[in-house]
Protein backbone atom coordinates (compact mmCIF):
# COMPACT_ATOMS: atom_id res chain seq x y z
CA UNK A 1 0.00 0.00 0.00
CA UNK A 2 1.56 3.32 -0.98
CA UNK A 3 1.50 6.46 1.01
CA UNK A 4 -1.39 7.99 -0.95
CA UNK A 5 -3.78 5.12 -0.18
CA UNK A 6 -2.79 5.23 3.45
CA UNK A 7 -3.71 8.94 3.59
CA UNK A 8 -7.07 8.11 2.03
CA UNK A 9 -7.84 5.37 4.53
CA UNK A 10 -6.82 7.60 7.42
CA UNK A 11 -9.09 10.32 6.06
CA UNK A 12 -12.05 7.95 5.98
CA UNK A 13 -11.34 6.77 9.50
CA UNK A 14 -11.06 10.37 10.67
CA UNK A 15 -14.43 11.33 9.13
CA UNK A 16 -16.11 8.34 10.66
CA UNK A 17 -14.63 9.05 14.08
CA UNK A 18 -15.87 12.62 13.83
CA UNK A 19 -19.35 11.41 12.94
CA UNK A 20 -19.15 9.12 15.93
CA UNK A 21 -18.37 12.03 18.24
CA UNK A 22 -21.10 14.16 16.69
CA UNK A 23 -23.69 11.45 17.19
CA UNK A 24 -22.59 10.87 20.77
CA UNK A 25 -22.92 14.58 21.45
CA UNK A 26 -26.34 14.76 19.81
CA UNK A 27 -27.49 11.72 21.77
CA UNK A 28 -26.21 13.19 25.01
CA UNK A 29 -28.00 16.44 24.24
CA UNK A 30 -31.23 14.61 23.51
CA UNK A 31 -30.93 12.78 26.81
CA UNK A 32 -30.23 16.00 28.69
CA UNK A 33 -33.32 17.73 27.31
CA UNK A 34 -35.48 15.22 29.13
CA UNK A 35 -33.34 14.90 32.25
CA UNK A 36 -32.75 18.64 32.71
CA UNK A 37 -36.39 19.50 32.13
CA UNK A 38 -37.34 17.00 34.81
CA UNK A 39 -34.65 18.18 37.21
CA UNK A 40 -35.65 21.82 36.74
CA UNK A 41 -39.30 21.06 37.36
CA UNK A 42 -38.50 18.91 40.35
CA UNK A 43 -36.11 21.46 41.83
CA UNK A 44 -38.62 24.24 41.35
CA UNK A 45 -41.34 22.19 43.05
CA UNK A 46 -39.07 21.48 46.00
CA UNK A 47 -37.96 25.12 46.23
CA UNK A 48 -41.56 26.39 46.15
CA UNK A 49 -43.12 23.73 48.31
CA UNK A 50 -40.34 23.02 50.78
CA UNK A 51 -41.78 25.07 53.62
CA UNK A 52 -45.03 23.14 53.46
CA UNK A 53 -43.41 19.73 53.69
CA UNK A 54 -43.96 19.15 57.39
CA UNK A 55 -45.81 16.35 59.18
CA UNK A 56 -49.01 18.43 59.45
CA UNK A 57 -49.20 18.63 55.68
CA UNK A 58 -49.75 14.87 55.59
CA UNK A 59 -52.19 14.75 58.48
CA UNK A 60 -54.43 17.72 57.62
CA UNK A 61 -57.55 17.87 55.52
CA UNK A 62 -58.00 20.50 52.81
CA UNK A 63 -58.87 23.96 54.10
CA UNK A 64 -59.60 27.44 52.81
CA UNK A 65 -56.55 28.61 54.73
CA UNK A 66 -53.49 27.60 52.75
CA UNK A 67 -51.32 27.24 55.83
CA UNK A 68 -53.72 24.73 57.44
CA UNK A 69 -54.50 22.80 54.28
CA UNK A 70 -53.05 19.35 53.86
CA UNK A 71 -53.21 16.28 51.69
CA UNK A 72 -54.52 13.67 54.12
CA UNK A 73 -57.70 12.85 52.19
CA UNK A 74 -55.78 13.03 48.90
CA UNK A 75 -52.99 10.60 49.67
CA UNK A 76 -55.28 8.16 51.47
CA UNK A 77 -57.62 8.39 48.47
CA UNK A 78 -54.82 7.81 45.96
CA UNK A 79 -53.53 4.86 47.96
CA UNK A 80 -56.99 3.26 48.32
CA UNK A 81 -57.77 3.70 44.63
CA UNK A 82 -54.39 2.24 43.63
CA UNK A 83 -55.02 -0.77 45.88
CA UNK A 84 -58.27 -1.54 44.08
CA UNK A 85 -56.56 -0.94 40.74
CA UNK A 86 -53.76 -3.37 41.54
CA UNK A 87 -56.06 -6.06 42.93
CA UNK A 88 -58.38 -5.88 39.92
CA UNK A 89 -55.96 -5.32 37.03
CA UNK A 90 -52.98 -7.53 37.91
CA UNK A 91 -54.67 -10.97 38.12
CA UNK A 92 -56.98 -10.28 35.19
CA UNK A 93 -54.19 -8.85 33.05
CA UNK A 94 -51.79 -11.71 33.75
CA UNK A 95 -54.49 -14.32 33.14
CA UNK A 96 -55.44 -12.68 29.84
CA UNK A 97 -51.81 -12.42 28.77
CA UNK A 98 -51.07 -16.06 29.62
CA UNK A 99 -54.20 -17.19 27.81
CA UNK A 100 -53.41 -15.21 24.66
CA UNK A 101 -49.80 -16.40 24.62
CA UNK A 102 -50.13 -20.03 25.70
CA UNK A 103 -53.70 -21.23 25.17
CA UNK A 104 -55.45 -19.21 22.49
CA UNK A 105 -55.69 -20.84 19.06
CA UNK A 106 -54.23 -18.81 16.20
CA UNK A 107 -57.19 -17.58 14.20
CA UNK A 108 -58.83 -14.42 12.96
CA UNK A 109 -60.63 -13.82 16.25
CA UNK A 110 -57.50 -13.92 18.41
CA UNK A 111 -55.67 -11.75 15.87
CA UNK A 112 -58.45 -9.23 16.16
CA UNK A 113 -58.32 -9.34 19.96
CA UNK A 114 -54.55 -8.92 19.92
CA UNK A 115 -54.70 -5.84 17.69
CA UNK A 116 -57.39 -4.35 19.88
CA UNK A 117 -55.50 -4.95 23.10
CA UNK A 118 -52.47 -3.14 21.71
CA UNK A 119 -54.62 -0.27 20.50
CA UNK A 120 -56.45 0.00 23.82
CA UNK A 121 -53.18 1.00 25.46
CA UNK A 122 -53.31 4.19 23.41
CA UNK A 123 -56.94 5.16 24.04
CA UNK A 124 -57.23 8.55 25.79
CA UNK A 125 -57.97 8.06 29.47
CA UNK A 126 -61.09 10.25 29.43
CA UNK A 127 -62.74 7.62 27.21
CA UNK A 128 -62.26 5.08 30.00
CA UNK A 129 -63.79 7.61 32.36
CA UNK A 130 -66.92 7.93 30.22
CA UNK A 131 -67.20 4.16 29.87
CA UNK A 132 -66.80 3.72 33.62
CA UNK A 133 -69.39 6.40 34.37
CA UNK A 134 -71.96 4.41 32.40
CA UNK A 135 -70.91 0.93 33.47
CA UNK A 136 -69.53 1.05 37.02
CA UNK A 137 -71.21 4.16 38.41
CA UNK A 138 -74.72 3.71 36.97
CA UNK A 139 -75.25 0.24 35.47
CA UNK A 140 -73.50 -1.65 38.32
CA UNK A 141 -74.58 0.94 40.86
CA UNK A 142 -71.14 1.32 42.45
CA UNK A 143 -71.68 5.08 42.63
CA UNK A 144 -68.97 7.71 42.90
CA UNK A 145 -66.79 5.50 45.03
CA UNK A 146 -63.25 4.29 45.51
CA UNK A 147 -64.37 1.00 43.99
CA UNK A 148 -65.53 2.68 40.76
CA UNK A 149 -62.35 4.72 40.49
CA UNK A 150 -60.07 1.75 41.18
CA UNK A 151 -61.82 -0.41 38.60
CA UNK A 152 -61.68 2.43 36.05
CA UNK A 153 -57.96 2.82 36.44
CA UNK A 154 -57.70 -0.98 36.45
CA UNK A 155 -59.29 -1.03 33.00
CA UNK A 156 -56.94 1.73 31.94
CA UNK A 157 -53.79 -0.22 32.80
CA UNK A 158 -55.11 -3.64 31.77
CA UNK A 159 -53.71 -3.43 28.20
CA UNK A 160 -50.28 -2.51 29.54
CA UNK A 161 -50.30 -5.49 31.91
CA UNK A 162 -51.47 -7.86 29.16
CA UNK A 163 -48.88 -6.69 26.65
CA UNK A 164 -46.01 -6.84 29.15
CA UNK A 165 -47.09 -10.31 30.33
CA UNK A 166 -46.94 -11.55 26.76
CA UNK A 167 -43.57 -9.93 26.12
CA UNK A 168 -42.20 -11.52 29.28
CA UNK A 169 -43.53 -14.96 28.34
CA UNK A 170 -41.98 -14.69 24.89
CA UNK A 171 -38.60 -13.92 26.41
CA UNK A 172 -38.48 -17.32 28.16
CA UNK A 173 -36.16 -19.65 26.23
CA UNK A 174 -38.14 -22.23 24.26
CA UNK A 175 -36.22 -25.16 25.78
CA UNK A 176 -37.81 -24.48 29.17
CA UNK A 177 -41.26 -25.10 27.70
CA UNK A 178 -40.07 -28.05 25.61
CA UNK A 179 -38.28 -29.57 28.59
CA UNK A 180 -41.31 -29.32 30.82
CA UNK A 181 -43.65 -30.77 28.21
CA UNK A 182 -41.00 -33.42 27.54
CA UNK A 183 -41.23 -34.78 31.07
CA UNK A 184 -45.01 -34.95 30.77
CA UNK A 185 -46.19 -31.72 32.37
CA UNK A 186 -49.64 -30.44 31.41
CA UNK A 187 -50.06 -26.97 29.99
CA UNK A 188 -51.31 -25.65 33.34
CA UNK A 189 -48.34 -27.18 35.15
CA UNK A 190 -45.94 -25.55 32.69
CA UNK A 191 -47.63 -22.21 33.14
CA UNK A 192 -47.86 -22.45 36.91
CA UNK A 193 -44.43 -23.88 37.71
CA UNK A 194 -42.29 -22.36 35.00
CA UNK A 195 -43.68 -19.67 32.79
CA UNK A 196 -45.34 -17.39 35.35
CA UNK A 197 -42.49 -17.53 37.90
CA UNK A 198 -39.85 -16.88 35.23
CA UNK A 199 -41.74 -14.05 33.63
CA UNK A 200 -42.60 -12.31 36.92
CA UNK A 201 -39.80 -9.70 36.66
CA UNK A 202 -41.01 -8.66 33.21
CA UNK A 203 -44.64 -8.61 34.28
CA UNK A 204 -43.73 -6.51 37.32
CA UNK A 205 -42.19 -3.90 35.04
CA UNK A 206 -45.40 -3.64 33.05
CA UNK A 207 -47.52 -3.47 36.17
CA UNK A 208 -45.44 -0.65 37.62
CA UNK A 209 -45.45 1.33 34.38
CA UNK A 210 -49.23 0.99 34.36
CA UNK A 211 -49.62 1.91 38.04
CA UNK A 212 -47.33 4.93 37.64
CA UNK A 213 -49.54 6.12 34.81
CA UNK A 214 -52.68 5.49 36.82
CA UNK A 215 -51.62 7.38 39.95
CA UNK A 216 -51.23 10.61 37.98
CA UNK A 217 -54.53 10.30 36.10
CA UNK A 218 -57.10 13.02 36.67
CA UNK A 219 -59.49 13.04 33.73
CA UNK A 220 -61.23 9.65 34.17
CA UNK A 221 -61.42 10.13 37.93
CA UNK A 222 -63.12 13.49 37.58
CA UNK A 223 -65.50 12.04 34.99
CA UNK A 224 -66.75 9.39 37.38
CA UNK A 225 -67.25 12.02 40.06
CA UNK A 226 -64.30 12.35 42.41
CA UNK A 227 -64.73 15.05 45.03
CA UNK A 228 -62.66 18.12 45.55
CA UNK A 229 -63.37 18.90 49.17
CA UNK A 230 -63.56 15.92 51.44
CA UNK A 231 -62.53 16.22 55.06
CA UNK A 232 -62.99 12.68 56.29
CA UNK A 233 -61.32 9.37 55.60
CA UNK A 234 -62.90 6.19 54.27
CA UNK A 235 -63.87 3.69 57.00
CA UNK A 236 -60.88 1.65 58.14
CA UNK A 237 -60.54 -1.78 56.50
CA UNK A 238 -59.62 -3.47 59.79
CA UNK A 239 -62.03 -3.35 62.70
CA UNK A 240 -61.85 -4.36 66.33
CA UNK A 241 -64.73 -6.84 66.20
CA UNK A 242 -65.48 -9.88 64.09
CA UNK A 243 -65.10 -10.34 61.14
CA UNK A 244 -62.23 -7.86 61.61
CA UNK A 245 -62.28 -6.90 57.96
CA UNK A 246 -64.53 -4.18 56.69
CA UNK A 247 -65.12 -3.36 53.05
CA UNK A 248 -67.16 -0.19 53.55
CA UNK A 249 -64.17 1.90 52.44
CA UNK A 250 -64.78 0.71 48.89
CA UNK A 251 -68.02 2.68 48.82
CA UNK A 252 -66.64 5.86 50.23
CA UNK A 253 -66.30 9.14 48.34
CA UNK A 254 -62.73 10.21 47.76
CA UNK A 255 -60.31 12.61 46.16
CA UNK A 256 -56.87 11.92 44.71
CA UNK A 257 -53.55 13.76 44.67
CA UNK A 258 -53.69 15.22 41.13
CA UNK A 259 -57.18 16.65 41.72
CA UNK A 260 -56.08 18.28 44.97
CA UNK A 261 -53.04 19.75 43.19
CA UNK A 262 -55.10 21.08 40.31
CA UNK A 263 -57.54 22.71 42.70
CA UNK A 264 -54.72 24.46 44.51
CA UNK A 265 -52.99 25.76 41.37
CA UNK A 266 -56.20 27.49 40.29
CA UNK A 267 -56.68 29.35 43.60
CA UNK A 268 -56.24 33.12 43.68
CA UNK A 269 -54.13 33.08 46.86
CA UNK A 270 -50.42 32.81 46.21
CA UNK A 271 -49.91 30.59 49.27
CA UNK A 272 -51.87 27.76 47.64
CA UNK A 273 -49.22 27.56 44.91
CA UNK A 274 -46.81 26.38 47.61
CA UNK A 275 -49.26 23.69 48.63
CA UNK A 276 -49.62 22.61 45.01
CA UNK A 277 -45.85 22.39 44.60
CA UNK A 278 -45.48 20.39 47.81
CA UNK A 279 -48.27 18.01 46.75
CA UNK A 280 -46.61 17.66 43.34
CA UNK A 281 -43.36 16.72 45.00
CA UNK A 282 -45.13 14.04 47.07
CA UNK A 283 -46.85 12.67 43.97
CA UNK A 284 -43.55 12.39 42.08
CA UNK A 285 -41.99 10.85 45.17
CA UNK A 286 -44.80 8.27 45.39
CA UNK A 287 -44.25 7.34 41.74
CA UNK A 288 -40.49 7.08 42.22
CA UNK A 289 -40.98 4.88 45.29
CA UNK A 290 -43.28 2.58 43.34
CA UNK A 291 -40.62 2.28 40.66
CA UNK A 292 -37.93 1.67 43.26
CA UNK A 293 -39.92 -1.16 44.84
CA UNK A 294 -40.44 -2.67 41.40
CA UNK A 295 -36.76 -2.53 40.56
CA UNK A 296 -35.85 -4.07 43.89
CA UNK A 297 -38.44 -6.86 43.49
CA UNK A 298 -37.27 -7.53 39.96
CA UNK A 299 -33.70 -7.78 41.13
CA UNK A 300 -34.65 -10.16 43.95
CA UNK A 301 -36.75 -12.36 41.68
CA UNK A 302 -34.13 -12.47 38.90
CA UNK A 303 -31.56 -13.71 41.36
CA UNK A 304 -33.72 -16.67 42.31
CA UNK A 305 -34.13 -17.80 38.71
CA UNK A 306 -31.45 -20.06 37.27
CA UNK A 307 -31.77 -21.72 33.93
Amino acid at each position, binding site marked *: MDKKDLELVRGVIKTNRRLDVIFAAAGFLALMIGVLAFITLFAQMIATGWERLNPEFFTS*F*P*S*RRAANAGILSAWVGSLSVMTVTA*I*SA*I*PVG*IAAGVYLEEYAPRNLLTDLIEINVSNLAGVPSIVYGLLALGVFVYAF*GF*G*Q*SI*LSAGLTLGLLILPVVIVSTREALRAIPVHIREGAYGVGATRWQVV*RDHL*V*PYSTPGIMTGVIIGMSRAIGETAPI*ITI*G*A*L*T*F*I*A*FLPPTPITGEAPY*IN*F*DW*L*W*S*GFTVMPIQMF*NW*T*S*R*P*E*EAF*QQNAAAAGFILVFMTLMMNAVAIWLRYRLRKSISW
Partner: protein
Amino acid sequence: MRSMNKTIIASACFALLATAAHAQSMVKVDGSSTVFPVTEAVAEDFQKSTKGAVKVTVGISGTGGGFKKFCRGEIDVANASRPILKKEMDDCAKAGIKYYEMPVAFDALTVVVNPKSKITQLTVAQLKAMWEPGAQGKVATWNQIDPSFGDGKLKLFGPGSDSGTFDYFTEAVNGKSKASRGDYTASEDDNVLVQGVSRDVNALGYFGYAYYVENKNKLKAVAVVNSKGKAVLPSEQSVIDGSYNPLARPIFIYVNEKSLERAEIRQFVEFYMKNGAKLASEVKYVPLPAKAYTSNLEHVAKKKIGTVFGGEAEVGVTIEELIAREAKL
Protein backbone atom coordinates in the same frame (compact mmCIF):
# COMPACT_ATOMS: atom_id res chain seq x y z
CA MET B 1 -48.08 -18.99 43.34
CA ARG B 2 -49.79 -19.07 46.69
CA SER B 3 -49.85 -15.29 46.74
CA MET B 4 -51.70 -15.26 43.46
CA ASN B 5 -54.35 -17.63 44.78
CA LYS B 6 -54.80 -15.26 47.67
CA THR B 7 -55.34 -12.36 45.34
CA ILE B 8 -58.01 -14.28 43.47
CA ILE B 9 -59.78 -15.20 46.70
CA ALA B 10 -59.55 -11.61 47.88
CA SER B 11 -61.15 -10.38 44.67
CA ALA B 12 -63.96 -12.85 45.11
CA CYS B 13 -64.45 -11.66 48.69
CA PHE B 14 -64.87 -8.11 47.44
CA ALA B 15 -67.76 -9.18 45.32
CA LEU B 16 -69.39 -11.07 48.18
CA LEU B 17 -68.85 -8.62 50.99
CA ALA B 18 -69.64 -5.56 48.95
CA THR B 19 -72.92 -4.28 50.25
CA ALA B 20 -74.44 -0.89 49.59
CA ALA B 21 -72.95 1.92 51.61
CA HIS B 22 -74.73 2.71 54.83
CA ALA B 23 -76.60 5.96 54.72
CA GLN B 24 -74.63 8.11 57.11
CA SER B 25 -75.13 11.73 58.05
CA MET B 26 -73.78 13.07 54.82
CA VAL B 27 -74.27 16.31 52.91
CA LYS B 28 -73.39 16.02 49.23
CA VAL B 29 -72.62 19.18 47.30
CA ASP B 30 -71.39 19.49 43.71
CA GLY B 31 -71.33 22.01 40.89
CA SER B 32 -69.68 25.30 39.96
CA SER B 33 -66.00 25.96 40.58
CA THR B 34 -66.83 29.65 41.13
CA VAL B 35 -69.06 28.87 44.11
CA PHE B 36 -66.69 26.17 45.38
CA PRO B 37 -64.45 28.37 47.60
CA VAL B 38 -67.47 29.71 49.53
CA THR B 39 -69.12 26.31 49.99
CA GLU B 40 -65.78 24.75 50.87
CA ALA B 41 -65.25 27.29 53.63
CA VAL B 42 -68.76 26.64 54.95
CA ALA B 43 -68.28 22.86 54.73
CA GLU B 44 -64.98 23.05 56.58
CA ASP B 45 -66.38 25.05 59.48
CA PHE B 46 -69.70 23.21 59.58
CA GLN B 47 -68.00 19.84 59.80
CA LYS B 48 -65.83 21.14 62.61
CA SER B 49 -68.85 22.54 64.45
CA THR B 50 -70.57 19.15 64.42
CA LYS B 51 -67.31 17.50 65.56
CA GLY B 52 -67.33 15.30 62.49
CA ALA B 53 -70.78 13.82 63.15
CA VAL B 54 -71.96 15.15 59.79
CA LYS B 55 -69.78 14.65 56.77
CA VAL B 56 -69.79 17.14 53.91
CA THR B 57 -68.37 16.52 50.46
CA VAL B 58 -67.97 19.16 47.78
CA GLY B 59 -67.17 18.33 44.16
CA ILE B 60 -66.45 20.50 41.14
CA SER B 61 -68.27 19.44 38.02
CA GLY B 62 -69.33 22.85 36.74
CA THR B 63 -72.72 24.54 37.12
CA GLY B 64 -74.22 22.43 34.31
CA GLY B 65 -72.69 19.18 35.57
CA GLY B 66 -73.88 19.97 39.08
CA PHE B 67 -77.49 20.50 37.94
CA LYS B 68 -77.39 17.21 36.03
CA LYS B 69 -76.51 15.35 39.23
CA PHE B 70 -78.92 17.49 41.24
CA CYS B 71 -81.86 16.68 38.97
CA ARG B 72 -81.02 12.98 39.17
CA GLY B 73 -81.21 13.22 42.94
CA GLU B 74 -77.57 12.24 43.43
CA ILE B 75 -76.65 15.31 45.45
CA ASP B 76 -78.40 17.39 48.10
CA VAL B 77 -77.07 20.81 47.18
CA ALA B 78 -75.98 22.22 43.80
CA ASN B 79 -73.45 25.05 43.56
CA ALA B 80 -74.43 27.32 40.67
CA SER B 81 -72.79 30.46 39.29
CA ARG B 82 -75.93 31.22 37.25
CA PRO B 83 -79.65 30.60 37.75
CA ILE B 84 -81.10 27.25 36.74
CA LEU B 85 -82.02 27.12 33.02
CA LYS B 86 -85.29 26.03 31.44
CA LYS B 87 -83.90 22.69 30.31
CA GLU B 88 -82.59 21.92 33.79
CA MET B 89 -85.90 22.96 35.34
CA ASP B 90 -87.64 20.45 33.08
CA ASP B 91 -85.18 17.71 34.04
CA CYS B 92 -85.79 18.35 37.73
CA ALA B 93 -89.55 18.48 37.22
CA LYS B 94 -89.46 15.16 35.36
CA ALA B 95 -87.59 13.53 38.25
CA GLY B 96 -89.99 15.14 40.73
CA ILE B 97 -87.23 17.14 42.35
CA LYS B 98 -88.25 20.40 43.98
CA TYR B 99 -85.72 22.91 45.21
CA TYR B 100 -85.02 26.16 47.00
CA GLU B 101 -82.91 28.77 45.22
CA MET B 102 -80.58 30.64 47.55
CA PRO B 103 -78.25 33.44 46.50
CA VAL B 104 -75.16 33.17 48.74
CA ALA B 105 -72.66 35.80 47.55
CA PHE B 106 -71.72 38.14 44.75
CA ASP B 107 -69.10 37.47 42.16
CA ALA B 108 -67.93 40.75 40.65
CA LEU B 109 -66.27 40.34 37.27
CA THR B 110 -63.32 42.68 37.27
CA VAL B 111 -61.81 44.25 34.17
CA VAL B 112 -58.09 44.74 34.73
CA VAL B 113 -55.20 46.37 32.92
CA ASN B 114 -51.49 46.63 33.56
CA PRO B 115 -50.60 49.08 36.39
CA LYS B 116 -48.60 51.13 33.87
CA SER B 117 -51.59 51.54 31.56
CA LYS B 118 -53.22 54.96 31.25
CA ILE B 119 -56.71 53.46 31.12
CA THR B 120 -58.78 54.18 34.23
CA GLN B 121 -62.37 53.73 33.08
CA LEU B 122 -64.30 52.13 30.24
CA THR B 123 -67.90 52.06 29.13
CA VAL B 124 -69.75 48.86 28.36
CA ALA B 125 -69.88 50.03 24.73
CA GLN B 126 -66.10 50.32 24.67
CA LEU B 127 -65.75 46.85 26.18
CA LYS B 128 -68.15 45.59 23.55
CA ALA B 129 -66.08 47.19 20.79
CA MET B 130 -63.10 45.16 22.04
CA TRP B 131 -64.81 41.86 22.74
CA GLU B 132 -67.69 41.47 20.28
CA PRO B 133 -67.37 38.67 17.69
CA GLY B 134 -67.17 41.26 14.90
CA ALA B 135 -64.00 42.72 16.40
CA GLN B 136 -62.09 39.56 15.60
CA GLY B 137 -59.12 40.40 13.37
CA LYS B 138 -60.29 44.03 13.00
CA VAL B 139 -59.89 45.75 16.35
CA ALA B 140 -56.18 45.38 17.05
CA THR B 141 -54.99 48.66 18.59
CA TRP B 142 -56.19 50.77 21.52
CA ASN B 143 -56.87 53.88 19.40
CA GLN B 144 -59.60 51.98 17.56
CA ILE B 145 -61.54 52.06 20.83
CA ASP B 146 -60.79 55.71 21.56
CA PRO B 147 -58.19 57.92 19.81
CA SER B 148 -56.95 59.15 23.19
CA PHE B 149 -55.90 55.61 24.24
CA GLY B 150 -52.76 55.70 22.07
CA ASP B 151 -51.66 53.33 19.36
CA GLY B 152 -50.58 50.41 21.58
CA LYS B 153 -51.42 46.91 20.40
CA LEU B 154 -54.51 45.60 22.14
CA LYS B 155 -53.71 42.35 24.00
CA LEU B 156 -56.77 40.63 25.40
CA PHE B 157 -56.89 37.98 28.11
CA GLY B 158 -60.02 36.13 29.25
CA PRO B 159 -61.38 32.83 30.51
CA GLY B 160 -62.10 29.95 28.14
CA SER B 161 -65.55 29.23 26.77
CA ASP B 162 -66.33 26.51 29.37
CA SER B 163 -66.39 29.00 32.18
CA GLY B 164 -69.47 30.60 33.73
CA THR B 165 -67.49 33.84 33.97
CA PHE B 166 -67.17 33.84 30.18
CA ASP B 167 -70.91 33.20 29.80
CA TYR B 168 -71.83 36.09 32.07
CA PHE B 169 -69.33 38.59 30.66
CA THR B 170 -70.37 37.92 27.06
CA GLU B 171 -74.05 38.19 28.05
CA ALA B 172 -73.49 41.46 29.92
CA VAL B 173 -71.14 43.10 27.43
CA ASN B 174 -71.92 41.62 24.02
CA GLY B 175 -75.60 41.02 24.68
CA LYS B 176 -75.47 37.32 23.97
CA SER B 177 -74.08 34.51 26.13
CA LYS B 178 -70.98 32.86 24.59
CA ALA B 179 -70.75 35.45 21.77
CA SER B 180 -67.15 36.64 21.86
CA ARG B 181 -64.22 37.23 19.58
CA GLY B 182 -61.98 34.18 19.58
CA ASP B 183 -58.57 35.74 18.98
CA TYR B 184 -57.61 36.45 22.59
CA THR B 185 -55.46 34.56 25.06
CA ALA B 186 -57.87 32.21 26.82
CA SER B 187 -57.13 30.14 29.89
CA GLU B 188 -59.30 28.21 32.34
CA ASP B 189 -56.69 29.01 34.97
CA ASP B 190 -57.23 32.62 36.07
CA ASN B 191 -53.69 32.78 37.44
CA VAL B 192 -52.45 32.54 33.85
CA LEU B 193 -54.57 35.58 32.98
CA VAL B 194 -53.18 37.48 35.98
CA GLN B 195 -49.62 36.73 34.80
CA GLY B 196 -50.45 37.76 31.23
CA VAL B 197 -51.92 41.15 32.12
CA SER B 198 -49.22 41.93 34.67
CA ARG B 199 -46.49 41.50 32.04
CA ASP B 200 -47.87 43.59 29.18
CA VAL B 201 -48.55 47.34 29.32
CA ASN B 202 -51.17 47.07 26.58
CA ALA B 203 -53.04 44.10 28.04
CA LEU B 204 -56.63 43.99 29.23
CA GLY B 205 -58.34 41.04 30.85
CA TYR B 206 -61.33 40.04 32.95
CA PHE B 207 -61.90 37.50 35.70
CA GLY B 208 -63.44 37.03 39.15
CA TYR B 209 -62.96 39.71 41.83
CA ALA B 210 -61.00 37.39 44.15
CA TYR B 211 -58.15 37.08 41.65
CA TYR B 212 -57.91 40.85 41.44
CA VAL B 213 -57.91 41.30 45.23
CA GLU B 214 -55.11 38.76 45.65
CA ASN B 215 -53.01 40.44 42.94
CA LYS B 216 -53.67 44.12 43.54
CA ASN B 217 -49.96 44.93 43.39
CA LYS B 218 -49.65 43.51 39.87
CA LEU B 219 -52.91 44.75 38.33
CA LYS B 220 -55.08 47.82 38.01
CA ALA B 221 -58.87 47.50 38.07
CA VAL B 222 -60.78 49.50 35.48
CA ALA B 223 -63.86 51.45 36.56
CA VAL B 224 -66.87 50.45 34.48
CA VAL B 225 -69.47 53.05 33.57
CA ASN B 226 -72.80 51.81 34.92
CA SER B 227 -76.36 52.25 33.68
CA LYS B 228 -76.58 55.63 35.44
CA GLY B 229 -73.51 56.94 33.60
CA LYS B 230 -71.18 56.78 36.58
CA ALA B 231 -67.76 55.12 36.40
CA VAL B 232 -67.52 52.70 39.34
CA LEU B 233 -64.64 50.57 40.55
CA PRO B 234 -65.45 47.11 41.87
CA SER B 235 -65.41 46.97 45.66
CA GLU B 236 -67.45 45.33 48.38
CA GLN B 237 -69.36 48.58 48.86
CA SER B 238 -70.14 49.27 45.19
CA VAL B 239 -71.20 45.68 44.56
CA ILE B 240 -73.56 45.56 47.55
CA ASP B 241 -75.21 48.91 46.78
CA GLY B 242 -75.69 47.81 43.17
CA SER B 243 -73.72 50.70 41.63
CA TYR B 244 -71.14 48.33 40.16
CA ASN B 245 -73.20 47.04 37.30
CA PRO B 246 -73.65 45.21 35.01
CA LEU B 247 -70.59 43.07 35.84
CA ALA B 248 -71.63 41.93 39.31
CA ARG B 249 -73.74 38.81 39.60
CA PRO B 250 -75.13 36.78 42.47
CA ILE B 251 -74.03 33.15 42.84
CA PHE B 252 -76.32 30.47 44.24
CA ILE B 253 -76.83 27.21 45.94
CA TYR B 254 -79.87 25.09 45.09
CA VAL B 255 -81.13 22.83 47.85
CA ASN B 256 -83.22 19.72 47.24
CA GLU B 257 -86.51 20.06 49.13
CA LYS B 258 -86.60 16.33 50.04
CA SER B 259 -83.05 16.48 51.41
CA LEU B 260 -84.03 19.41 53.63
CA GLU B 261 -86.27 17.06 55.59
CA ARG B 262 -83.08 15.46 56.90
CA ALA B 263 -81.75 17.15 60.01
CA GLU B 264 -78.15 17.34 58.82
CA ILE B 265 -79.06 19.13 55.58
CA ARG B 266 -81.23 21.60 57.47
CA GLN B 267 -78.39 22.27 59.89
CA PHE B 268 -75.94 22.71 57.03
CA VAL B 269 -78.16 25.21 55.19
CA GLU B 270 -78.84 27.14 58.40
CA PHE B 271 -75.12 27.23 59.13
CA TYR B 272 -74.49 28.41 55.56
CA MET B 273 -76.93 31.30 55.88
CA LYS B 274 -75.70 32.30 59.32
CA ASN B 275 -71.98 32.26 58.46
CA GLY B 276 -72.12 32.77 54.70
CA ALA B 277 -71.42 36.50 54.77
CA LYS B 278 -68.36 36.19 56.99
CA LEU B 279 -66.93 33.21 55.12
CA ALA B 280 -67.61 34.72 51.69
CA SER B 281 -65.55 37.80 52.48
CA GLU B 282 -62.87 35.60 53.98
CA VAL B 283 -62.41 33.87 50.62
CA LYS B 284 -62.50 37.31 48.92
CA TYR B 285 -66.03 37.18 47.59
CA VAL B 286 -68.50 39.99 48.16
CA PRO B 287 -71.13 38.95 50.71
CA LEU B 288 -74.83 39.68 50.23
CA PRO B 289 -76.64 42.10 52.56
CA ALA B 290 -77.70 40.32 55.76
CA LYS B 291 -81.39 40.29 54.86
CA ALA B 292 -80.70 38.17 51.78
CA TYR B 293 -79.51 35.32 53.99
CA THR B 294 -82.45 35.59 56.37
CA SER B 295 -84.87 35.76 53.47
CA ASN B 296 -83.40 32.48 52.14
CA LEU B 297 -84.29 30.81 55.42
CA GLU B 298 -87.73 32.43 55.42
CA HIS B 299 -88.32 30.89 52.00
CA VAL B 300 -87.68 27.49 53.52
CA ALA B 301 -90.03 28.20 56.43
CA LYS B 302 -92.74 29.40 54.04
CA LYS B 303 -92.02 26.60 51.55
CA LYS B 304 -91.35 29.04 48.73
CA ILE B 305 -89.81 26.58 46.31
CA GLY B 306 -88.54 27.20 42.79
CA THR B 307 -86.51 29.85 40.98
CA VAL B 308 -87.19 33.55 40.56
CA PHE B 309 -85.54 33.64 37.14
CA GLY B 310 -87.94 31.48 35.14
CA GLY B 311 -85.12 29.67 33.35
CA GLU B 312 -83.58 32.75 31.75
CA ALA B 313 -80.10 34.19 32.19
CA GLU B 314 -80.32 37.82 33.34
CA VAL B 315 -77.85 40.63 33.60
CA GLY B 316 -77.56 43.31 36.24
CA VAL B 317 -80.31 42.27 38.66
CA THR B 318 -79.91 43.69 42.14
CA ILE B 319 -80.30 41.57 45.24
CA GLU B 320 -83.34 43.61 46.38
CA GLU B 321 -85.14 42.72 43.16
CA LEU B 322 -84.34 39.05 43.69
CA ILE B 323 -85.69 39.01 47.24
CA ALA B 324 -88.87 40.78 46.17
CA ARG B 325 -89.64 38.39 43.34
CA GLU B 326 -92.02 35.45 43.56
CA ALA B 327 -90.40 32.05 43.02
CA LYS B 328 -91.83 29.36 40.79
CA LEU B 329 -90.82 25.85 39.80
